[in-house]
């Protein structure tokens, strides 16, 4: 499974793409008293296993709202979201927890580590929810922390780590249960330029190594160069989708200017 995923990530043969997330005319309306806010106005998207997808768009364009749908945190007002061909709206609370635990990894803008837990405990928490024994969880957690370059820091609490290090722990935590999809909502927004780039490169590395699908929302143009595909959203609609090949041209074009 890893092999095919890796193949898809590196060679990206268009024919063999396997869809991991599919949305059909997803709409989301927030009702605030009399006013209706149309955060999403019918989004059709197909996201393939093993790809690194960036979602770009101005503030308020609906990126976070879309992430909440895909992550099973919120339900569309209209339309369908399928994860591994399962309709998320059909899941009960128990199955949703299962989905969040096993299928989805979250990376937050503000890291969201549990402050009372060490780095290792933060990484192993999703494994505990998944039912691993403490020994299994610890071993796996140490491997993951090693991968994100924090093997030595496993016993540190979040407030003893820098922002970049905290986000690394969060990356390790997101990968804890070998999810199908990692959702990263502006993972670099609270980091300085260099640290942000490191996190992006780390995500890309994880994507190549384990074939995990990464969906990342960003304002950050650094993200473009590592993405397999970039989706631009505006006013709750997909404005444009660009593949890697087209992107290269654009990036050089921009740099040339």
């Amino acid at each position, binding site marked *: 499974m890893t092999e095919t995923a890796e193949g898809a990530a590196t060679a990206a043969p268009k024919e063999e793409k396997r869809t991991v997330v599919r949305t059909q005319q997803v709409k989301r309306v927030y009702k605030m008293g009399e006013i209706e806010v149309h955060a999403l106005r019918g989004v059709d998207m197909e996201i393939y296993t093993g790809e690194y997808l960036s979602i770009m768009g101005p503030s308020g364009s609906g990126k976070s709202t879309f*992430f909440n749908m895909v992550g099973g945190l919120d339900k569309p007002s209209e339309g369908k979201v399928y994860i591994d061909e*399962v309709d998320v709206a059909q899941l009960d609370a128990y199955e949703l927890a*299962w989905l969040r635990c096993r299928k989805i990894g979250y990376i937050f803008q*503000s890291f969201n580590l549990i402050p009372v837990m060490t780095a290792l405990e933060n990484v192993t928490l999703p494994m505990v929810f998944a039912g691993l024994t403490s020994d299994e969880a610890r071993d796996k957690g140490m491997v993951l922390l090693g991968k994100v370059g924090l093997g030595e820091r496993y016993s540190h609490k979040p407030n003893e780590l820098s922002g970049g290090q905290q986000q690394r722990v969060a990356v390790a*935590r997101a990968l804890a249960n070998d999810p199908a999809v990692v959702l990263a909502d502006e993972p670099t927004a609270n980091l300085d330029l260099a640290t942000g780039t490191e996190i992006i490169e780390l995500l890309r590395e994880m994507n190549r190594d384990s074939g995990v699908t990464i969906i990342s929302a960003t304002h950050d143009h650094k993200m473009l160069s590592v993405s397999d595909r970039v989706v631009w959203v505006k006013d709750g609609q997909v404005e444009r989708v660009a593949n890697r090949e087209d992107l290269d041209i654009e990036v050089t074009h921009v740099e040339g200017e």
Partner: protein
Amino acid sequence: MSEKRLAGGREIVLPMSKAVEISFRSLKIRFGRSLITTSGVILAIAFLMSVWSSNAIVGSLRDVNKSEINLLLQKNGIETGLAESGEASAEAQARMLEEESKQTWLISLSLLVCVVGIANAMLMSVTERFREIGTMKCLGALDSFIVKLFLLESTFQGFAGTTAGIIIGFALTFLLALLDYGGYVLDYFPLNNIAESAGYALVVGTSLSLIGAMLPAYRAAKMEPVEAMRSDT
């Protein structure tokens, strides 16, 4: 391979030990605050225990019915020899009943205040930790796990506070009784009665903490995980 199996996902086993560990840790890290919350429990239970042990000690001394002890008791304003005297006893009995109901009223009031205090403190704790709770739910925590977390936290707190309250309440009463009745207290120490009271007080204090945490725990469990995703704050 995993496609259609999602909906029938296998049980997520949530070891109690982890919940115990997390809630214990949360308490330790917020020690100052939990100490304040706990002080309410300590005071209420100390009061309860003091009333109970005082009743037990006095009752035991009265049952001895020795003239020198009766004298001491009367000096402290306690009726003695109720069994014998006829007419006067009716009045005394009434007075004792009134005294008792006043005590009950005071105890209930202090316990009620204690529960409200616990509920309030736990609600604050929930609000403070909305991000933590949301994150845990994003990571796959079930509502029941969150409920467990907060109930356990409050129960630990309650247990510790109750134990302290029992010791304090008893110790104070015992010292006062020693001053009033001297060695007789030791001679006729109602060990069984006091132990029983301590047991009851422990149950009362701990269950009150549990009850006080119920609504906050429920609120925490119902919190939407989207909260954790929200970027600001």
